[in-house]
Every structure is written in structure tokens, then in C-alpha cells.
């Protein structure tokens, strides 16, 4: 098992190096460089070309591309992610402030989708072709078709304005730290973010469950005189889990991407909102660092899913 995990992590490293290179390429391709951002457009007219060249030399901007890349990479590994072009605050600090919020939202959405999606999918499979099954199926189709942000807007209208049950926007009221108190802020964004994934998980777990229930081992379980609930749960559902876990792994990038939009709508102070602000302001360091870290998150998450799959299916480890 340790072997498996180490192998997977080692695999990551070349990929991350290439991605870091591409990210740096992206930084270079962005219009303007650090110097352009430090001097306002008005001043630009008055500054001489020589002065500009000297500023660039001081910042090391005149060195060849490869050298600059390695300097940047070195800084990255030391934890220096550069500075925001708007506020001058270290990107690492900004990220440390916003990452927990995004993780909280994403994990909540993931848990919600997995649990609710699997449950509804299994129920649909067990009550195949019943009214409940058809209704859930329709909800599933709508859930996949409706734009997430639209669903968010509708959710706000219903739960915030019409019913007044939940607060709008933000992660917590001033002074609230405890998780349970903050829950009411988390619920709506997490459910909305998880919507598409829930619909997907529901559909897939229904199919997976139906497939599993058709298999011989379910018949064997019944032939042993086991009660139906045990046949369905311990035998049917347990084997149906593995393909669903794999599906969730594939859909993780969408969850992280979706957080960008959902955070904006609900004003959730996470990486996504920071990222969007940076995109609008062409704040290169932030844009690129968040991009890099989103890839890191996706790759790490897929390793976790791989491990989970190996745990769920004993046939995998021995491959």
C-alpha cells in the first residue's frame, strides 16, 4: 500500500514540473511585465527608456527566459509565490487566507454530492421504474442541464428572499467562528456547487447498482437465506461503490472549477473569488499561482481517489 502511494506521488513530479513550465510560459505571454505594472500610465510617458531598462535589470527581467524560469521555480519551492500586482501583498499570504474557505466549500459539496447522490441512485435502482424513480430521473436530467450559476440564483431567490431561511453571501457573520454557527452560510453554496455532481453521481450509481444487482453473487447471497436489505446493501451496493468512486474522481476538476463561479455568486471568500478578481485586473502572479495550485489539487485528489479505489476493490492492489 505504501509502495502504491509513493509510486503515485513520484509520478506526479514530472507532471508538475512541466505544468510549472507552462505556467511560467503563460506568465511571460501575459501583456506587460512587472515594471509596466509598477509605473502608472501617466508616469510612463515621462520615464526614459534607459531608466526603464535599468529597472528591468535590477529586477532581473533582462536575463534569458530559461534563467528567469529557474529563478521563479526556485522561489516557488521556497514558498515565495510573488506579489499581488494590485496590493503588493505576498501571493502566498493571500492564498493561505483564502484556501481554507475554498477547501471547506469544496469538501462540503463533495460530501453532499457523494452521500445524497449515491443514496438517491441506490433508491432509484431498488425501486426501478416506480414513480419515485422517474421523478428522480427527471431531476437528474435537469440537474445536469441547468447552469450552476442559474441554479444558484434561483436558490438565492427561494431560500434567501422568499423564505428568508438562509443568509445571503459571505462565509460568516462577524464574530462567528464555530463551525456549527457558520453552517447556515455554508449550506446553500455547497448544495449549489454540488448540484451537477449530485445529478451525475445519482445517475451513475443507479446504473452501477442495477448492474451489480444483476450479478451472480447477489443471487448467491439470496440463496444463503440472507434478508433482502443485506443482499442489497452488503452485496449489491458494496460492489457498485467502486465505479462510482472512480466517476467522482474524474469529476473532481469540475468541482474545483465550479467553485470559481459559485464563490462569486455567494461572495464566498475563497480562492475562486480572488482568482476572478485577479483575472479582471490582469493580476498575473495571482492568476498563475491559483492556476498552478488548482492543478496540484486536482492531481492530489485523483491520487486519493486511486487509493480509495484500491481500498474498495481488493482485485486492484494485486494487479
Amino acid at each position: 500500500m505504501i509502495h502504491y502511494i509513493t509510486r503515485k506521488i513520484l509520478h506526479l513530479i514530472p507532471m508538475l514540473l512541466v505544468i510549472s513550465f507552462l505556467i511560467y510560459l503563460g506568465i511571460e505571454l501575459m501583456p506587460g511585465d512587472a515594471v509596466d505594472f509598477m509605473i502608472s500610465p501617466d508616469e510612463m510617458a515621462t520615464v526614459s527608456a534607459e531608466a526603464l531598462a535599468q529597472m528591468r535589470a535590477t529586477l532581473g527581467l533582462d536575463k534569458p527566459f530559461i534563467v528567469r524560469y529557474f529563478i521563479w521555480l526556485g522561489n516557488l519551492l521556497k514558498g515565495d509565490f510573488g506579489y499581488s500586482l494590485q496590493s503588493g501583498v505576498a501571493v502566498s499570504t493571500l492564498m493561505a487566507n483564502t484556501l481554507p474557505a475554498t477547501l471547506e466549500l469544496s469538501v462540503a459539496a463533495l460530501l453532499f454530492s457523494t452521500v445524497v447522490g449515491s443514496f438517491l441512485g441506490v433508491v432509484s435502482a431498488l425501486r426501478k421504474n416506480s414513480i419515485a424513480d422517474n421523478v428522480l430521473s427527471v431531476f437528474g436530467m435537469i440537474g445536469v442541464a441547468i447552469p450552476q450559476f442559474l441554479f444558484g440564483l434561483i436558490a438565492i431567490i427561494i431560500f434567501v428572499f422568499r423564505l428568508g431561511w438562509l443568509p445571503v453571501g459571505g462565509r460568516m457573520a462577524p464574530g462567528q467562528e464555530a463551525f456549527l454557527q457558520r453552517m447556515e452560510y455554508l449550506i446553500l453554496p455547497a448544495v449549489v456547487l454540488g448540484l451537477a455532481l449530485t445529478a451525475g453521481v445519482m445517475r451513475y450509481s443507479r446504473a452501477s447498482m442495477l448492474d451489480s444487482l444483476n450479478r451472480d453473487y447477489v443471487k448467491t447471497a439470496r440463496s444463503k437465506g440472507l434478508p433482502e436489505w443485506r443482499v442489497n446493501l452488503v452485496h449489491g451496493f458494496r460492489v457498485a461503490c467502486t465505479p462510482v468512486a472512480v466517476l467522482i474522481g474524474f469529476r473532481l476538476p469540475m468541482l474545483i472549477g465550479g467553485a470559481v463561479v459559485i464563490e462569486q455568486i455567494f461572495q464566498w471568500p475563497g480562492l475562486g473569488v480572488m482568482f476572478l478578481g485577479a483575472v479582471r485586473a490582469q493580476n498575473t502572479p495571482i492568476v498563475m499561482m491559483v492556476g498552478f495550485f488548482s492543478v496540484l489539487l486536482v492531481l492530489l485528489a485523483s491520487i486519493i481517489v486511486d487509493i480509495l479505489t484500491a481500498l474498495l476493490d481488493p482485485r486492484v492492489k494485486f494487479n
Partner: protein
Amino acid sequence: MRSASLNKKMDTLLRMELAGELSHSKKSRLLRKLHANKLAVLGTAIFAVILVLCVFAPIFTSYSSTDVDLRNRLTAPNSTHLMGTDQIGRDILSRILYGGRVSILVGLGSALGATLIGVSLGTYAGYKGGFLDATVMKVSELFMSFPQIILVLILVTITGQSLWNIIFIFVLTGWPSMYRMTRSQMLSIREEEYVQALRAFGINDFLIPFKHMLPNAIGPIFVNITLSTAMFILQESALSFLGLGVPSNVATWGNVLSPAQNLTILRDNWWIWLPVGMVLTVFVLAINFIGDGLRDAADPTQLG
């Protein structure tokens, strides 16, 4: 025990079988397939209706999507403006219809572009294998390790916002999944005997994959085109909603929705966002129905 209704259904079937009413002729097979895929038929109908409405927009509305009329801002739906006006007086209905043209263009165009590149690469590289295949695989893995919207936004920051930039970016981020899918199809078809036979005959390396193998994979490819179209339409709408997609002077469904970010407008001016949202959702739903129908039609294992 067995439910009474199930028993009755069985009795009916028994009776009909004994009376010989249940044998199917070949003619009704097509009808049967259509009947089983009512959703796909419905989807096609909805798709066609919306498409016609948008393509022939001038017939259905006399306003343009960009005319500003500050005297008639935020008016609710009435007889002159069937869907009301937005915050700078533009007619919402015409924005929806003209905006549909752009959204559909972006969705379909990007899907076709991504398919063209992805399928070509997948067909050839999947067949040939070797260094080319390994390289393209690695490249596709790189692209796919980004959450798509983040990669798109990074590229938008670099290239700037314009309609064609967006389509280009979508194609660039979308080809890897088409490539992967085609490649896996090719890998399994490659093992078929007729491919070995063609190779033995010395048929050249382009004809075999493109002329002989590809037609057999066409089913899933079409399914993927429809589903990609749906995905790109949703993506464009999200981007434009945030103001980071197609520039706001061009109407798209996402752009029309954009003002709803303001909570006041969201609460008080439902006509700005609800109709567009519904059209968008229904259109994507229709495409999904068509895609599901195609998938069922192509899959011989799906039966009663």
C-alpha cells in the same frame, strides 16, 4: 407477495401471447425504437424550434439586441416589449433571440472544432501508437489536469476577450477529451481481424484508420459532439455571466443573464434573468435528450 398490478400485467401478456398478438414484424421495429426514445424526439423538436427562433430572429422581433432606450429601463413584460427591458432599456426578447445565435454558434462551433482536432489525432495516434501516441497522450493529460474553467480564464487573460478568442480557447481546452475517447475506440478496433488483414494487404497508414476504422467509431463520436455542445454552451454562459466571456456588446445568453449578479435586479426584475435561464436550460436539456437517444440507438445491448 407479487403486487396485484404486476399479476394483472402478466395475465394480460399471457392472454395476448396465447392469442398470437405479440409477434413483431420487421416494419414496426423503427416505430418501436422511436417510441422507446420519445425523449430524443422531444429533444430534437425543442432544439429545432429554438434554433429556428434564433436563426430567424428578425422575423420574430423588430428590435435589435443592442439598441439602448434609457426612457424604458427595467420595464416588466408588456405589449411593446414582450419580455420587458433590461437596465439600459434593451429589449430582452431580441437579446434572447440574437443572443441564442451566438451561444449556439459558440457551443456547436467549439464542439465541432474540438472534435475535428481530437478525432483526427485520436484516430491516427491511436492506430499508430508509439512515440506520437505517447506524446499526444501526455499533452492531453496536461490539459486535462486543469479544471477547465480555470484554464479557460488563464487563456482569456492572455489573449483577451473576443468571440473568436473564446471559440479558439474552447477548442484548445476541449480537444483532449475527444482525443481520449477516439483513441480508446481505436485501440479496441485495432485488434479486430479486418484491420490486421488490411495491414497485411499493405494499405497505407492513413487510409486504414480514417477510411476503415473510423466509421465504426462514429456512434460514440456523435454522442460526444452533442454532449460537448451542451457543455460548451453552459461554459460560455457561465463565463459571459461573469463578464469574462464574449464581450458584453455582443448579446449571448450568458451576457443577458449577467445583470442578475446584482441582488436587487435578481429580486425585483425577474424578467431579466428567468426567461433567458429557462431557454438556456431547456435548450441544453434538449441536447442532452438527443445525446442520450443517440447513445441508446448506437448501443445494441439496450433492450426492453
